[in-house]
């Protein structure tokens, strides 16, 4: 079972208590009524969908109920760090960040415990 550290509960909790909530650090344009349809589409619909390191919002919906931010490797499904909503992108711990993302069945499925 995957354990996720909730920055509000201050402990590792089962993935069953959490829900994914999309890409993090997307700022709502302050002049939203003035921007073009293309700019609005870019803000509202388009996501980077990076392979590997991504910054995401997660919600501890069956725990404290809070949204928070997480850096996660989408290949290994490893959470590199989590931090409270509203904080800027946090530096990554040494060990997780240097992990190679090797594209083999063993690397992707074998780690997805």
């Amino acid at each position: 079972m995957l354990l996720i550290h909730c920055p509000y509960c201050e402990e590792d909790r089962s993935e069953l208590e959490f829900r994914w909530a999309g890409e993090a650090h997307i700022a709502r344009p302050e002049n939203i009524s003035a921007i073009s349809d293309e700019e609005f589409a870019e803000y509202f619909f388009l996501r980077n969908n990076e392979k590997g390191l991504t910054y995401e919002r997660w919600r501890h919906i069956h725990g404290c109920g809070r949204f928070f931010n997480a850096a996660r490797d989408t290949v290994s499904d490893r959470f590199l760090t989590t931090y409270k909503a509203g904080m800027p992108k946090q530096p990554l711990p040494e060990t997780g960040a240097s992990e190679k993302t090797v594209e083999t069945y063993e690397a992707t499925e074998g780690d997805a415990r």
Partner: protein
Amino acid sequence: MADSGADLANRTSPLSGFHGGSSTVRLEAAPPAERISLRARAEDVAALSSALGVDLPVRPKTSASGNGRSALWLGPDEWLVIAEGNGGLMQAAKNSGALHSATDVSHRNTAILVSGPGAAAAINAGCPQDLSLKAFPVGACSRTVFGKVEIVLLRTGGDAFRMEVWRSFSDYAFGLLAEGAQDAAV
């Protein structure tokens, strides 16, 4: 007017008549209680605590009890306050004069009392939390999951828990606990 025979509306507990357990786990429906879902900002916690007569805890996974009331930390600005019988919680919160949101959820929830040496094992049949006394000591509480439903779990003693569950999910929760109790006794 014809006598409908319905002059008296009798309240029935969602778990009335349920029984289960094993040689190591006792399962009981908790008596009716008053409950509020309370939301407030940090600066209003002190006023609400004194009005409710119980200190709203501010540390994760902790609770406080006193004067027949228990306050359970659910989130950084959210508590579940439980009073035995008819405790006047809504009025007490209102009397605080502090900005808050209180919703009476007395009849949204019901509770199952789980006790005995196999209590933690029975709950762990459907709950992923570490219920060792080190990680989840007496007085610890948490919103979490139990099988397919959300619960709020409070440890009331070394071998005793109160499981708060939404009333429409309570027969599922009780059934899964009964299964867990059987497994815990093996």
